[in-house]
């Protein structure tokens, strides 16, 4: 029942040209290693979806992998704008991309509905903003309990593939997540095919000792990849911090399309695996990102046999 494989096999098995692909993780647990593998495999027509495109989409867009981007906040968090994203939208470089835009709640509501096969999700925002006028996925219904009120609703979002990360998983793909879980759980439940990458594989007993922590059940997972530091330069709570220098550097690296491609040559095309990327980062950089331990208060599930 093991679903364990490497990222090369997971991506080639899960992602088909033309697919809608959601990369989960709000600031935390961003699947950078998977993004880099998608770039290396040379996809050209992916419909990419993330609430926050972040650097990983900037890299995918610059590499020419995207034909459209669905999102709700396209910036370099805490730093500034996403230059490759802007070049694509403003100037069609390296190619035109279509955009499908929401507020955060609008987008995560679509994912929420997709994860649950809800016919639509109602929300008390978007009304009054300019988004509904430009996005046919945002519609209104009359509130049957208050006929004076029109309520914005969004339809389910069901990606072909979701790629998510977690701290640890069993070989069957049951995963524990702690810290900011963001959109990860709904992304996994909403998709047809799920690639799960983790810092550590652990045994099934360890996972089942805390079933309330199992955000992602193996039943929705198709591929399990163990890749330490696979979220770098984003972070994994309890394992390493965000590499803020990399976010600041990206603002320079992505200044031009050419300098962006040079970076991709070195850090993406220039390595075959995440392990090679981590070796290239070097020990000093990894050590700088290490937190000190801070264990949670234990819980006792009790055995009732």
């Amino acid at each position, binding site marked *: 029942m093991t679903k364990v494989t490497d990222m090369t096999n997971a991506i080639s098995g899960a992602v088909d040209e033309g697919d809608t692909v959601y990369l989960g993780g709000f600031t935390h647990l961003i699947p950078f290693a998977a993004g880099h593998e998608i770039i290396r495999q040379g996809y050209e027509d992916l419909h990419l979806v993330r609430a926050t495109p972040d650097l990983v989409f900037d890299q995918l867009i610059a590499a020419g992998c995207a034909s459209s981007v669905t999102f709700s906040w396209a910036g370099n968090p805490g730093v500034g704008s996403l230059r490759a994203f802007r070049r694509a939208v403003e100037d069609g470089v390296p190619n035109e991309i279509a955009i499908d835009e929401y507020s955060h709640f609008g987008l*995560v509501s679509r994912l929420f509905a997709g994860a649950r096969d809800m016919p639509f999700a109602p929300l008390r925002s978007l009304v009054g903003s300019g988004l509904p006028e430009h996005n046919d996925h945002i519609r209104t219904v009359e509130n049957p309990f208050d006929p004076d009120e029109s309520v914005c609703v969004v339809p389910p979002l069901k990606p072909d593939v979701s790629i998510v990360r977690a701290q640890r998983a069993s070989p069957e793909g049951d995963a524990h997540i702690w*810290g900011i879980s963001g959109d990860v759980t709904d992304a996994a439940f909403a998709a047809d095919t799920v690639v799960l990458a983790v810092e550590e594989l652990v045994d099934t007993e360890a996972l089942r000792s805390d079933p309330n922590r199992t955000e992602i059940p193996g039943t929705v997972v198709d591929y399990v990849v163990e890749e330490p530091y696979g979220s770098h330069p984003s972070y994994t709570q309890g394992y390493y911090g965000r590499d803020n220098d990399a976010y600041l550097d990206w603002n320079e690296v992505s200044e031009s399309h050419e300098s962006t491609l040079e970076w991709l040559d070195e850090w993406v095309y220039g390595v075959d695996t995440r392990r090679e990327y981590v070796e290239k980062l070097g020990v000093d950089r990894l050590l700088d990102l290490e937190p000190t331990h801070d264990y949670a208060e234990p819980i006792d599930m009790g055995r009732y046999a």
Partner: protein
Amino acid sequence: MSRGDATDSDESVDYTDTELMITRAAQELRNDDTVLVGVGVPNLACNLAKRTHAPDLQMIYESGTVDSNPDALPLSIGDPVLATGARSIVPMYEGFSRYLQGGRVDVGFLGGAQIDKRGNINSTAIGDYGDPTVRLPGSGGACEISSNAHRTLIIAPHQKRRFPESVDFVTSPGYLDGEESREDLGLRGGPEAVITDKAVMKFDDDGELYVETLHPGVTREEVQAATGWEIRFADDVTATPTPDADEIRLIREELDPDGVYTGGGD
């Protein structure tokens, strides 16, 4: 950055525009508020309020951390220092639904590339949405903050291009076009103040901005020149209260010792 100079009980304090914006914003926060915080000036304002008059202020972030008590300056709204030691962490959908939509956020901070006469904010695109001159990051949670928080505070540099009479795109609804009311649309609250590097503006009963206080040394003419419509002034325009020595020390020595957001306290 320009700088002012203020007289505390018995000492004169240097401060930057950013520091004045931080201290003034902090004053808008009450001890029992729950505030939805962004990085930068809002985060510093909240942490300052927490260490002065509002120790019980509860800070929550779009990333779903509730009552964060960061040991270090968070560099993004999803920084791990916001997670460790928080009261609670919830998925993104729950932060927006249980907390914001649920009416559990008293105050939200907003900024934007354009803010208009009626407090509508554009952080989406300059020019035409379909063919923008400048593509901005977009809403993120800003549309929800403006729609669901009980009150919102807007912080922005005072520049004419940033304060047009009407925004190119409404990312975050303020008081709309004056024809439809927020309440009729099912929106809660509304913007309460705009704090710039020149003045503090408030909204009249029709939802139109007017200048309440001018920062020390700033003239009416300077504010008008940096505003894209004929801005009105309160009958009794006063001077914005300036930072005191303790506030400046907290900002420079504890909250942002490396000057990430305040330029080294200079």
